């Protein structure tokens, strides 16, 4: 019993990180119907920015987290302005290639500046404790808590604020909403800023839990989060969160039930099966309102 509880905690922690990154994919897809494949690398920049920041200024963890969220928000906006906006009316395939290229540029810039993986100092005092036979630590609880907080806040913003309404309107019909006085460019910029903020937060939290940062760290997890977003129904914010937790749970569950050699095979086959029965993802649907 304790063993399963322990594995459940592992799954929730992993799922929280996937969900945070998956949100960025889903938000951008909802508004622009494009895959922002540079998103995983924004996550990586978040981890590096945190490392750089704390090695220059010994700021408290919360300050570093907030500062990095601002930095990656700006990076998200910059990527959109430089790489995506000029191609907004170009064929979809061009936008996908630009996004992939953008990710590679960020990754290789980091690689040329810092070819070696680096240790991340512990900024958050992680105290292990036992609760009902399960070993947990305060960092784990913090990661799960902050992720949940950010996701609830985002959900609220999208449903209740003016920007949220503009965002949903833009996602419904990008050609008509400008006629209603919605500043589409600003809405898109804010969307990228929000996506960048979440990726930055995920980068900081992740690099505390797995304290080695390297230029390629965003690649694999970026892809996994993208899968999570698709499973949940890309374009749907609640779907992205659900997809993240499902992916985390499936990965951990296959290790629990089967030899770990089979993990990715089983985990991704299962996800394929979900897509066969729900081609638009669990919460996504072509008629349902996006974002």
């Amino acid at each position, binding site marked *: 019993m304790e*063993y399963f509880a*322990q*594995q459940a905690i*592992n*799954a929730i*922690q*992993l799922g929280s990180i996937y969900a945070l990154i998956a949100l960025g994919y889903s938000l951008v897809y909802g508004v622009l119907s494009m895959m922002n494949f540079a998103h995983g690398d924004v996550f990586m920049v978040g981890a590096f920015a945190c490392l750089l920041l704390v090695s220059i200024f010994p700021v408290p963890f919360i300050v570093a987290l907030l500062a990095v969220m601002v930095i990656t928000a700006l990076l998200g906006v910059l990527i959109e302005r430089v790489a995506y906006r000029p191609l907004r009316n170009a064929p979809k395939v061009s936008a996908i290639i630009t996004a992939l290229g953008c990710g590679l540029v960020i990754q290789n810039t980091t*690689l040329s500046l810092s*070819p*070696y*993986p*680096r*240790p991340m100092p512990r900024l958050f005092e*992680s105290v*292990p404790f036992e609760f009902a036979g399960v*070993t947990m*630590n305060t960092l784990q609880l913090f990661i799960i808590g902050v992720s949940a907080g950010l996701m609830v806040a985002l959900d609220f913003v999208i449903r209740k604020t003016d920007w949220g309404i503009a965002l949903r309107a833009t996602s419904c019909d990008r050609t008509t909403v400008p006629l209603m006085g919605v500043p589409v460019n600003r809405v898109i910029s804010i969307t990228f800023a929000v996506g960048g903020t979440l990726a930055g937060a995920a980068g900081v939290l*992740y690099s505390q*839990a*797995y*304290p*080695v940062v*390297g230029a*390629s*760290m965003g*690649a*694999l*997890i970026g892809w996994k989060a993208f899968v999570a977003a698709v499973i949940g129904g890309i374009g749907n914010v609640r779907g992205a969160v659900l997809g993240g937790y499902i992916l985390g749970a499936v*990965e*951990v569950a296959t*290790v*629990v039930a089967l*030899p*770990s*050699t089979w*993990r*990715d095979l089983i985990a991704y086959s299962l996800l394929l099966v979900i897509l066969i029965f729900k081609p638009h993802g669990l919460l996504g649907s072509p008629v349902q309102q996006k974002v």
Partner: protein
Amino acid sequence: MKLPLILASVLSVAVLAGCGKKAADSSSAVRIGLNVELTGELPAVGASSKNAVELHVAQINAAGGITIGGKKVPLELVIGDNGAKADQAAATAQRLLSQENVLVMVGPNASSCAIPASEIAESLKAPMISPWSTNPKTTVNAQTGKSKTYVLRGCFTDLFQAGVLAKFTLTDLKAKRAAVLFDVASEAPNGQANLYKETFEKLGGVISSFETYTTGDRDFSAQLTKIKASNPDVIFLPVYYSDVPLITQQARQLGITAQFVGSDAWSSPEIVKLGGAALESAYFCNHYSTEIATPAAKKFMADYEAKYGHAPDDVAALSYDSVGFMVKAIEAAGVADREAVRVALASIPSYEGVTGAMHFTPGSGDPVKSAVILQIKGGKFVWVANATP
């Protein structure tokens, strides 16, 4: 009209310049190719290997070069990056051996790169020595089970290493139950894990848990929780230095207290920088130790430190020896010819390198040489024991 014209003239100048350079080189210098992991997942390995080879080549050239047929000839080094990727390693081998026309190739170091590169060397009938690849498949054709003719390695094999470590865990650490966690997508770790399991069980030990992950994974909590439940005395981690710190730190966070044991893939000093306290008192198998160094090894360490500002790791020492061994074979061949060098390689009775003495038996690309067991203490690698074949 204008642009093609300019392009054509630029191209022809480039081609002419290229021709002139090549002709000048082939008449005077012996070209040695180096196929290393400068970018990708193992940059520390590539950098060490490149540093050591450059140092050795510079030393040989400072002494007038190598002696071929009574004449002193300088060495010329051609470096290719394999990105620590299998396909890129094969492409780099192809480029070095057929386009750059190097006489022999040193590298790659990682087994996942050395195995595909060795196929290229074998098909082009060019001598190759991998300084650090321990996987049996580097020098042995996996399909036929026969030794490759043109491929050597500068280090012991995984079979030998697994035996040394299995015996060490059972008799010295008195551990009866061992758990194994490794990267299933990487050649060297995969081979080491399976050979260790085989030997450990044959010697009477119990493998309590045998878990895997895939290259690039950062979260090992599910596997480690499973390992914790299997209650092992030691955890064997035959994985590259870049993954070890994350695994050991997560294991300690989960409250696992078992002793960690590792393979030679641990030996980069980076591991201590990244791993910190979680690695304290862990044991691993290595190619040499700075504490039991011969005078020649001490000189190498001093020269290396003077040039690069830090101590050499085992990849550096093995790369240094690999070049030295190849040069000795070229000199023994007396002619810059691949076939003559291949014949000479097997005829050298014993080569005294900085990692100890080694020699090759006819029909095998694996050297006969010993291993050491090291322990991590206070952030340093401390010598514990020697293991001879």
